[in-house]
């Protein structure tokens, strides 16, 4: 009996350690990725923009680990320098839509009524729009470029967070602890920021981390179509687009940036999953009970 108990406790501890370990592992990978993106210029073995036609289209080898493109530019350097545009644009975009969407959602959930109806119908309109079509339309009106691609994606994506925050706020609104906080004389902004926000932050954080991967892909997609980053500048999506025509003869030109996108998206998605596992309230309680 006692032995049995010990075994289950040990198993629980192992499980908790496993969850925390997973979180730390992916967090470390994500930080590594961000560091690479931050210090990209110093990490490049070659100048990513220097053309050297003598070494054009070299397959991966010792001097160029990921090969060269058709202008003889080092692919590794271009993948590294491209991470800055891809990752930071996605991060900034996710940060903005998370904050904006959450704020709108909380206001809708809390106040309800006409404000809620109006803002939610607006968000319905954007949810009904196919993202890429809208981005094409924005590019058509405002022109191409990273900034406009981000505007297009941002306008399309905030309703997801607004909906999430709204439903979470509604679930918290009638809870006893909020009534108690009202009786303690807390004003509405205080209730929203000090009580509701911390209690709904978990699922929102998970969603926004999972969204980083999606945004990296969508930004790369827009750049692939030529709506994002302008040509000489290195960006994963536009690099795939450049290498596309040579896919038969020089597949590394597509595989290198494609692999980079794959790895970056994977890391952020798995990080999101790890955060979700870690934040699971049941898990938390069990950990604190020990």
């Amino acid at each position, binding site marked *: 009996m006692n032995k049995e108990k010990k075994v289950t406790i040990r198993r629980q501890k192992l499980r908790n350690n496993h969850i925390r370990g997973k979180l730390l592992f992916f967090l470390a990978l994500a930080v590594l990725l961000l560091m690479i993106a931050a210090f990209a210029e110093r990490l490049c073995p070659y100048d990513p923009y220097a053309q050297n036609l003598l070494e054009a289209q070299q397959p991966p080898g010792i001097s160029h680990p990921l090969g060269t493109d058709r202008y003889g530019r080092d692919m590794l350097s271009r993948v590294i320098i491209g991470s800055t545009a891809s990752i930071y644009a996605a991060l900034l975009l996710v940060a903005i839509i998370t904050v904006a969407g959450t704020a709108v959602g909380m206001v809708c959930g809390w106040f309800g009524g006409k404000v809620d109806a109006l803002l939610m119908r607006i968000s319905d309109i954007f949810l009904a729009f196919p993202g890429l079509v809208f981005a094409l339309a924005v590019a058509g009106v405002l022109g191409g470029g990273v900034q406009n691609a981000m505007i297009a994606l941002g306008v399309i994506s905030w309703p997801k967070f607004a909906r999430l925050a709204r439903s979470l706020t509604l679930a918290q609104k009638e*809870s006893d602890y909020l009534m108690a906080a009202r009786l*303690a004389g807390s004003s509405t902004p205080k209730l929203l920021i000090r009580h509701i926000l911390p209690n709904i932050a978990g699922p929102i954080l998970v969603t926004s981390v999972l969204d980083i991967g999606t945004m990296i892909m969508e930004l790369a997609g827009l750049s692939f179509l030529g709506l994002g980053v302008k040509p000489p500048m290195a960006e994963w999506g536009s690099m795939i687009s450049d290498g596309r025509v040579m896919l038969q003869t020089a597949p590394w030109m597509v595989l290198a940036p494609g692999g980079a996108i794959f790895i970056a998206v994977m890391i952020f998605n798995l990080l999101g999953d790890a955060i979700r596992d870690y934040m699971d309230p049941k898990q938390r309680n069990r950990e604190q009970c020990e």
Partner: protein
Amino acid sequence: MTEILLEAEHLKKIFLSGKTSLTAVDDVSFSLREGECLGIVGESGSGKSTIARLLTRLLEPTEGKIRLLGEDITHMSGKKLRSVYQKMQMVFQMPAESFDPRRTLGNGIGESLRNMGISRKETGKKVEELLVLCGLTPEYAGRYPHEISGGECQRAAIARALAVDPLLLICDEATSALDVTVQKQILELLTELKEKKKLSFVFICHDLALVQRFCDRVLVMHQGKVEETGTPDEIINHPKREYTKILIDSVL
């Protein structure tokens, strides 16, 4: 003659959901003198908790008036309403759920003090005093609601309600979620506080025995209406209405 503290006049609350409507509280009037303890009894769904929420203005009454110390608080809002909460506090039915799960008990107890503009240091000191007053140790200030038992949590909830030195405490089934021994302890604590702080109570409960021990006057509710009022002994020994008899018989 002591002053009238709380007065409810023809309170009515109708809940609308789609096409159907439900009259939870129907034309309820009563008054409460200073230092008095009014018990409200009735079966589940008789509108007891709704009354508590109407009195504390957590719900808007459909009709009727609420007066606190002669002042009409029925339509107050914002800052004025918040100052009303310094005279009137409430203890909830589910102790653990009445605290923010992500904040410590000390934080919850001191919230009203912080909102009144009292410094962090002084609030901390007051919170510790309150915890001791309610039979807990100062260490509880740093704990989270899910780390402590229901009885301890209800003591903390009472401490929170007393933080602003209210005149009136509304207990909405404050002992119902606790087991009998803890129930007794909480009731003893409330009795002690009643004498020490000269508190008035609206004590909502479905347990007639508890009400008999604690209250000066009882209001029997049935389907949102007041069936009868009187002292606990009158009601229990000589019930006038049929429903009251049924209620008393069902206690064994």
